């Protein structure tokens, strides 16, 4: 059974002209690491928050978001709490903002299992100490306040907190963006290490293609609330099939590539106030034709590469290397 299975998921907010998420299909298998890549505003954070049922006020949804086979969108509050305590957990972008500065680390770690799973305080504390050691901290941190720890240490605490309920799925929402570069590498290494040790599925949300390539088995590229392209990480970065993926790769500095000019993608993502006809990327796309502005491309398998799917009318032309926006 897939750990996370999102099918035809649409999410609309009040006062917007188009759905924020327009038919997202995404799966994460057991022990699999999947990256969800996109610019800010593409809907990637909303997708990951939806998995825990954290919806903005007034949101309307269609489709299904299943964790371990159960649909999150139709869950009763009690079920939702159980899901958040023991099935799925989230790691947030800025650990300094994500942990209550007035409560001790020990309280933060054990809060969820004590209040919901009814764990005895002593057992919860023992588990917290164990998890702290698993992320490379010591039990001494239990008595400390968040203000006494560095950002990198706090993100480790955040990871330990996510592991407390032994979840099948961890959602990491830009977990390294707020950290400095060396700490970023440590946290990424830690996440990879923990996946093999605890066997959790990981959905890694990021805008950083290099990071996505380094950590994930499969990648989803998201644009304007839709999946533009998906496939195994290596194949997708080697031969992008969607012009947006190609443009993103061109705008990302790479160590191994010869130093060339980085190309910014011209234009901006479509605003939520305009309705979309056709392909959402068409106005910024060098390959766009009349067809692109009239009909939205479906997410279809790529010929000869069954693991890959792409939503582009001209995916066969993308590989030609002519994509410079």
């Amino acid at each position, binding site marked *: 059974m897939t750990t996370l299975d999102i099918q035809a998921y649409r999410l609309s907010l009040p006062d917007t002209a188009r759905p924020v998420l327009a038919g997202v299909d995404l799966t994460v298998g057991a022990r699999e690491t999947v990256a969800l890549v996109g610019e800010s505003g593409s809907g990637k954070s909303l997708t990951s*928050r939806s998995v825990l049922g954290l919806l903005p006020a007034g949101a309307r949804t269609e489709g299904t978001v299943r964790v371990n086979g159960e649909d999150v969108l139709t869950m009763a509050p009690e079920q939702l*709490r159980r899901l958040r305590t023991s099935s799925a957990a989230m790691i*947030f972008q800025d650990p300094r903002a994500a*942990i209550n500065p007035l409560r001790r680390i020990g309280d933060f770690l054990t809060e969820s299992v004590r209040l919901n799973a009814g764990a005895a305080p002593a057992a919860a504390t023992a588990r917290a100490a164990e998890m702290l050691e698993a992320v490379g901290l010591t039990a001494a941190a239990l008595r400390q306040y968040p203000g006494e720890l560095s950002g990198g240490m706090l993100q480790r605490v955040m990871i330990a907190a996510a592991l407390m309920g032994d979840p099948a799925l961890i959602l990491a929402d830009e977990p390294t963006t707020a950290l400095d570069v060396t700490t970023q590498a440590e946290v990424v290494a830690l996440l990879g290490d923990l996946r093999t040790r605890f066997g959790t599925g990981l959905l890694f949300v990021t805008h950083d293609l290099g990071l996505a390539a380094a950590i994930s088995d499969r990648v989803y590229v998201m644009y304007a609330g839709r999946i533009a392209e998906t496939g195994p990480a290596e194949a997708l970065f080697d031969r992008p099939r969607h012009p947006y993926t190609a443009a993103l790769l061109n705008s990302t500095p790479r160590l191994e590539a010869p130093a060339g000019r980085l190309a910014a993608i011209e234009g901006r993502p479509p605003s939520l106030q305009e309705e979309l006809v056709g392909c959402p990327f068409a106005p910024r796309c060098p390959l766009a034709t009349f067809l692109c502005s009239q009909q939205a491309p479906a997410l279809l398998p790529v010929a000869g590469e069954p693991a890959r799917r792409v939503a582009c009318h001209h995916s066969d032309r993308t590989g030609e290397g002519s994509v410079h926006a």
Partner: protein
Amino acid sequence: MSFLRFAARRLAEMAATLFGASFVIFGAMYLAPGNPASFLLSGRSASPEALKAINAQYHLDDPFVLQYLRWTGQILHGDFGRSITYRTDVSRLLADRLPSTLLLVGMALVLVVALGLLLGWIGAVRGGAADSTILVSTTFALGTPSFVAAVLLQGLFAVKLGWFPTGGTGDGLGQMIWHLTLPAVALALYLIGMLARVTRAAMLEVLGQEHVTVARSRGVSDHKVIRRHVFRNALGTVLTTGGLIVSTLLVCTVLVESAFSVGGIGQLLELSTTTKDFPTVQAISLIMVGLFMTVNLVVDLLHPLVDPRVTLGPRRSAA
């Protein structure tokens, strides 16, 4: 260890401010037109004995600084001098009247804390119609002076409906509480509005913070998130209003005790001001300032316990 040093420093600062305040209270009589002796005796026969008594109390022939030091020395020994109107020791007057004022202020404080926090909580958490109702009523509470509330409450609940006595203090604790209920409500009304506003704003600020979403994302139920995170974090801001609340309560006893003829130190302050009984005015001013500063000290000392981010003077190193 460092908490003790922090406490000692705060205590020293409080002593310094209290010293300054007592200086102002003592020196005020030299602002009066004419010489201090005639001011202190104003409106009364300046008989040689009376002059002698005043001189004995204030040592008006000594240099100013010496007079002041002698005065503070006496107060430190519990001697506030003699009341000119009542011809008795001010400390005896205070001892008779302080209990009812403290009971009144205590009752009002309970009302302020209970209702202020409750209304602020409801306004922040519920929103909608409940919030609008609370906003409008607190706006009016903030515009209602305690003496206006006192007169209106007295007119409605004591004169018209007869549920409570129109005034007086009563004997025995039960009677006193019954007599002081309306005055306590009048005293509390404005501050309930203020505290509700402060609590609401502080809780709304915390509600917008990411760690509240994080707590929800970890399956903590909504009301526990509100209690353990939102209210708990707002408490520090709420606590800082403690000094203002107590000082307002103390000063407004002057108005409310006069309106309800409560025999407390507030009424005594009003009476001694109109009768120009300056030693009594000095004593009560000093006691009010002292009580206010004691509360401020307690608030300062509690703050680091409520909020670990508050630094204790020289910060201990983060280990």
